[in-house]
């Protein structure tokens, strides 16, 4: 049976889960890690590294290591977040052909969905290794505030990785699913999700397997990484004051500091004080080495980030107000995202909701578990026992004459939903009409300078009947599916001429490009597999070569000096020589050939020596 996995593709970390005999399980990779850093790198030899391997070499290869690609996915080149990333990112960003963002690594240009696809295919590989079956389908989570283009781009990333993304689920909703799975309950809960890059708050009602989102709100520019950068800024400023050197220009130093800031932040969740220790970070005018050695206490950190936490609490208050609720109406609060381990956040959340957060779920794992549950529910369950009823966090409509926005699907509408609206021509004998589909700003999507509304696409309905203005009727039809992805069509009611817009054209990658990327990625997967197989062969050859070489000197005493035995021994010696040569030259074909011979020889010799 085709397996479906759930992937929480986070800004800093990614996690994969699947439902094994009705039990949602996190899949760890070979090294035993349950979460994989969302980091990819290209080595100077052109090798692709994903996860821990990529993160480990980030220091020595900062300009070819990509972090936090999720912040860039589905965004246009002009958007403020991309412009901000341009200044701070250690890797090179270039403008793509469709006003999108691309990354240049070792001279080769990659689109952001391709980068995300590398992480997704790594997750797929981890899952396949564990399940021991091919995995083709996946449910991928996104922040509730992701816009149409970002959702599309995430789906594209899945396709490039060879995964059929059967559903895009909002992260807080997925976490709630993991919380309520397999329990019979009627509860109202809040999900406070502070991930690496985004903040989401959702209020859900769980009622006998139906998960209904009552309201959601959030900020796409507020996350754990902002906490890290507060620490970095502090250290950089102190360093500048002390030595008069601004380290911001030094990519390598920034990378080291970034890692140190993150680990300091993490350890301050459990200890009261820690030290940021970075020896040989720079040299002064006299070529003397300079070091960073700074003590940082939990209070220091809390002082630096207090305003960030207050911002999240304000958004919570706004969400509750939208839903006409008070904190005491809620039965439980879920904390999702690694950043929520911070004691001050837990205290503020407890304080605001007057309810201690639910602690059994691991904040790093809940989302991917929920995604796996949703996938399992869609594909494998026979009973219609669980349902997710999500909302659209923004309003959708069209821009009509004189730039006025007509809302067709309002914010907080349940999805899936379809709605239509009748429009008419604005001038006499108008022959065509331009329909511009606009996604309105989500209330309180916040963020400094984030574009309030985005044009999702436009199309022209032509050959209208010649008629005085106002007589031609045009019906515009909006269809928002369960993924939060929109389809729009317009129909001239007189001639029944219809036109449908494919909004995916605006996800910054054309269909042709995606096809090409799928091919590339497939080629890469095979290559990688071959690579792993080769390592295994080499390992075996080495092992048997060693074992035979060990036995050789003792062989003479076991065999009598008959002609036959002499020949046999010569053959073995010859084989060992060939193996030495193959190993030295790293001759893959020869090694594959020899593997079998060596194995048989070793068995024979071993048997002979035993007898």
């Amino acid at each position, binding site marked *: 049976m085709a397996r479906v996995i759930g992937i929480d593709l986070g800004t800093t970390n990614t996690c994969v889960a699947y439902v094994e005999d009705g039990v949602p399980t996190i899949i760890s990779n070979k090294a035993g890690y349950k979460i994989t850093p969302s980091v990819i790198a290209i080595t100077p030899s052109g090798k692709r590294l994903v996860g821990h391997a990529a993160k480990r070499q980030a220091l020595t290869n900062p300009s070819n290591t990509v972090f936090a690609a999720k912040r860039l996915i589905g965004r246009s080149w002009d958007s403020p977040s991309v412009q901000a990333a341009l200044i701070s990112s250690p890797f090179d960003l270039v403008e793509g052909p469709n006003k999108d963002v691309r990354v240049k690594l070792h001279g080769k240009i990659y689109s952001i969905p391709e980068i995300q696809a590398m992480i997704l295919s790594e997750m797929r590989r981890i899952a396949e290794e564990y399940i021991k079956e091919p995995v083709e389908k996946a449910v991928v989570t996104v922040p509730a505030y992701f816009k149409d283009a970002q959702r599309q781009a995430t789906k594209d990333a899945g396709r490039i990785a060879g995964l059929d993304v*059967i559903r895009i689920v909002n992260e807080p909703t997925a976490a709630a699913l993991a919380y309520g799975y397999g329990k019979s309950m009627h509860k109202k809960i809040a999900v406070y999700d502070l991930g690496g890059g985004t903040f989401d708050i959702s209020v859900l009602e769980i*009622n*006998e*397997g*139906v998960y209904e989102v009552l309201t959601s709100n959030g900020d796409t520019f507020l996350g754990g990484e902002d906490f890290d950068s507060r620490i970095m800024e502090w250290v950089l400023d102190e360093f500048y004051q002390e030595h008069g050197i601004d380290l911001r220009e030094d990519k390598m130093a920034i990378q080291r500091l970034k890692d140190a800031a993150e680990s300091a932040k993490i350890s301050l969740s459990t200890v009261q004080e820690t030290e940021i220790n970075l020896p040989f970070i720079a040299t002064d005018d006299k070529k003397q080495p300079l070091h960073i050695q700074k003590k940082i206490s939990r209070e220091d950190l809390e002082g630096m980030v207090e305003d960030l936490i207050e911002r999240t609490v304000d958004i919570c208050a706004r969400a509750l107000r939208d839903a006409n609720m008070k904190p005491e109406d809620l039965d439980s609060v879920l904390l999702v995202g690694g950043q929520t381990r911070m004691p001050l956040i837990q205290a503020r959340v407890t304080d605001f909701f007057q309810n201690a957060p639910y602690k059994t779920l691991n904040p790093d794992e809940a989302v991917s578990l929920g995604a796996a549950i949703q996938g399992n*529910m*869609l*594909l494998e369950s026979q009973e*219609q*026992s669980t*349902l*997710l*009823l999500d909302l659209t966090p923004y309003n959708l409509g069209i821009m009509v004459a004189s730039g006025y926005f007509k809302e067709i699907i309002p914010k907080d509408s*349940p999805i*899936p*939903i*379809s*709605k239509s609206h009748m429009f008419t021509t604005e001038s006499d004998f108008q022959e065509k009409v331009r329909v511009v589909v606009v996604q309105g700003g989500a209330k309180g999507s916040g963020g400094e300078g984030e574009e309030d509304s985005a044009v999702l696409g436009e199309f022209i309905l032509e050959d209208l009947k010649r008629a005085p203005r106002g007589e031609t009727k045009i019906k515009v039809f909006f269809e928002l599916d*369960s993924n939060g992805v929109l389809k729009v069509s317009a129909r001239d009611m007189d001639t029944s001429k219809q036109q449908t817009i494919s909004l995916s054209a605006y996800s910054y990658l054309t269909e042709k490009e995606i096809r090409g990327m799928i091919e590339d990625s497939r080629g890469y997967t095979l290559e990688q597999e071959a690579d792993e197989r080769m390592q295994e062969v080499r390992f075996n050859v080495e092992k048997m070569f060693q074992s035979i070489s060990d036995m050789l000197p003792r062989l003479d005493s076991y065999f009598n000096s008959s002609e036959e035995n002499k020949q046999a021994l010569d053959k073995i010696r010859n084989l060992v020589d060939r193996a030495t040569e193959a190993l030295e030259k790293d001759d893959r074909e020869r090694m594959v050939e020899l593997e079998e011979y060596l194995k048989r020889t070793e068995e024979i010799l071993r048997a002979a020596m035993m007898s």
Partner: protein
Amino acid sequence: MTQIIEDNTILRVRPGVDLGNLNLSSQEGYMLSRIDGKMTVRDLYQISLLDKTATAAVLKNLIDQGVLAEVDPPNIVKLPSDYKCHDYGNTIFSLPAMQEDCEPEKAWRKEVLFLHENMDKLSHFEFMGIEVASEEAEIKKAFVRLSKILHPDSYYGRNMGTFKKKLSELYNHLSEAYRLLLDPNTRIEYKRKLSIVRGEPDWAGEEETPEERARKNRQVAKEKRLKNNPMMSRVSKAGEFYQAGLSDLEKQKWISAANNFKMALTYDPLNELYKLQLEKVADAANRVAAERHFQRGQTLEAYGQDGYMEAYEKAAQTYPTSVEFNLKICGLYSDQGDWDKAEHYAARAVTSNPKNLDARMTYGKILVKHKNKEKALQQFEAVLKLDPNNEQAKANLKEAKRWF
């Protein structure tokens, strides 16, 4: 045994049957040997060497003997066991839909077809299968119950044939109905409308929406407060005018705002806040009013009609601190030779803006005409002080000195 086996039926050997001890005909034995696990009757026709009728007869026999058993199709979309169907009356269901090759069972199809057919005829309550008097909890329950049938996720990846489109329309309808009924305000309004349409006056009854109730409560409380305290009644009226004035301010209706603040002050004359607001807005209001008079004057003048003098004069009176308005009316009076009035407005123009050269020059010239030597000289000198190279002022000064 005239009943025919349907092509879609899936057959398998009944578990526990001892094949060795059966007394079978050669045809039956042959058929049995062909059945491998679970197979549909259609597939058996394909592989059987017998013709179709003979195969059907043999299979039927085997079923009757209890050797073969029908298997429920593995993928069948069913209604939940506790689901209560609507009353279909004597609805006739469309045959193509009932016989269509897709996964839902018959009862399911009937329910969905009925709902789809009657979507617009049924009230939201009937559609959701609940009483008109239902409250939030029941409405939620009904929504959950129906969602499990109508939500597209409930049949993800299933073969639903033409039902798929019907379901998406039905789910859309359901979520709209649910939203409307969940909010007590819209629910009661809906009930009122429905009771008129259906001619059932009792449905909506005396029920008030929470919004109406809140509004009424506020009104009652306010009346009670006012009754107990006559002074408060005046104050509260003043407050109303003040609020109206504030909302005018937001819309930048200065005149109306000023009027409202004035009214507020008549009810509550000692209120400092009202005075302050009136002061703030008075200037803007006067300017707007004056501009209107001035424009009216311009229009009348342009069309050569009477009354423009009055309009200009009113503009200058309503907003005495405008150089432009004062100079305009001053010019008109000096044209007529009414030096007293011309002097009055020119003087005002100069006081409004002592640094305005035009105002001073005009004033000076009028003073010359009006035989007030000293003042006229003062004006020209003042102009020269502001602008030492003003040739016109020098000439005027010279001439004025010569005149007197």
